[in-house]
């Protein structure tokens, strides 16, 4: 993710102030997030369910 993309995403997420006051922390945060999902195997089955599931009848 380049600097420009990080800035756009940060502003969209409400981090304009953080971007102005702590730009290096915003970049560090974006870098932490950048590649992490690539380490996860994509389910072979496109209909695979997530966890936890929605469960009716278990209301509070």
């Amino acid at each position, binding site marked *: 993710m380049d600097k420009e993309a990080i800035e756009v995403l940060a502003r969209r997420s409400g981090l304009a102030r953080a971007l102005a006051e702590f730009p290096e922390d915003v970049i560090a945060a974006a870098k932490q997030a950048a590649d992490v999902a690539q*380490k996860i195997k994509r389910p072979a089955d496109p209909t695979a*369910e997530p966890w*936890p599931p929605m469960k009716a009848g278990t209301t509070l």
Partner: protein
Amino acid sequence: MSDLHWMTVEAAARAIAAKELSPVDLTKALLDRIEQLDPRLNAFIRVDGEAAMAAALAAETEAQAGRLRGPLHGVPVGIKDIINVAGLPTTCHSKVLQDNMATADAVCVEKLRGAGAIVLGKLSTHEFAIGGPSFDLPWPPARNPWNTDHHPGGSSSGSGSGVAAGLFPMALGTDTGGSVRNPASCCGIVGLKPTYGLVSRRGVFPLSFTLDHVGPMTRTVADNALMLQAIAGHDPLDPGSAAAAQGHYGAALDRGIRGLRVGFVRHFHEIDTPANPEVTAALEHVARSLQVEGAEVRDIKLPTLGEFGAVNRVILQSEAWSIHGPWLSERPGDYGKLGRQRLMAGAFMSAGDYMLASRRRLQMIAEVEAALREVDVLLCASSMDPACRIEDTAEVERTYPRQARTPFNVTGHPALAMMSGLSVGGMPVSVQFVGRYFDEATVFQVARAWERVAGTDKKHPPIV
């Protein structure tokens, strides 16, 4: 009675019930020790000495009259400062919540008090239970009693430090990516992350809704079972609470392990994240000892630590962002640097990332469940290294992620970390036991067998 500070929960409760020990004397002895040692350990954010002494006096009067509230009657406890204690602020070790007064006890605290425990005060944590030791927060970070130049692990850092140092015999911690088991590993005590939903999270400041657990931290396995017995149970007002029947967690403690099947997850520390040789040697020693005690030990393969870690991070940081986003937008300067960086990462996770992690999570649960149909309990590493110097930021950053705890936050299985030995540098190294859902009793059974062989309950840091 000498050395009250090393008394176990079990022994103290028994002596109080038999009117051989005064809760006032015990509480006073611990408060004196806190006054003496805590300036070097920083385990506490706030000591509530006056209230603790008042509670101890009440406990003594009740004990003398033969009225015991429960199995922890008169025994002091420390509470991680993300857990509500009525009348005290829950700061989460952060400027953001410095004046956040709790009006009611968290359910786990309420249950401890109901069992007779005496609350000593609020304990240090990593800011909002994430990140690492930080020096830019309103309170200093806790330190390791085995060597105060070293970190005690976290995020339940004050809980680990204080239990190990004999400031209190039991503490509450929380565990979202290993935060009970990391300080237990670094400080050489016993820390359990129970099955997800076994202990209510109501009144505990959340980090990640689907990964958060509350867990007991003690110096012995039996004490851990005793503490779990007090805090476990269904809470209809906690959406994640399990509707499972409460077990008898200490039932199998001294049954031995003959015939139990133990799955050794070697690839975690041999291939995925190669451990420090002293950690590896200690794990081999644990496995051999369990075999000598009659267990059958075989190798088990699970998904890689790298993938478990990625799933944990995506879910944790996405869910944490949903909590902290508004504060990070308005007052980012009120966070410490480490917490700010870790918590802002969620802003850069996509919905697709979160769904991918959540779908893979279901498969990972199935893979661990399959393994636990082959064996009764898993044995694996906890930390891959002994705790390093707290001010060596680069080494803290390098070693903190070198661990095998996150898999069981992802899957929700019960996991216990405890001492496996001491390094040549005199710091604890650790082992982890993992069980089937709601089968904490078998986890304790194996942990107790190892404790009996190694005498880990008798090993205390040389701090005076």
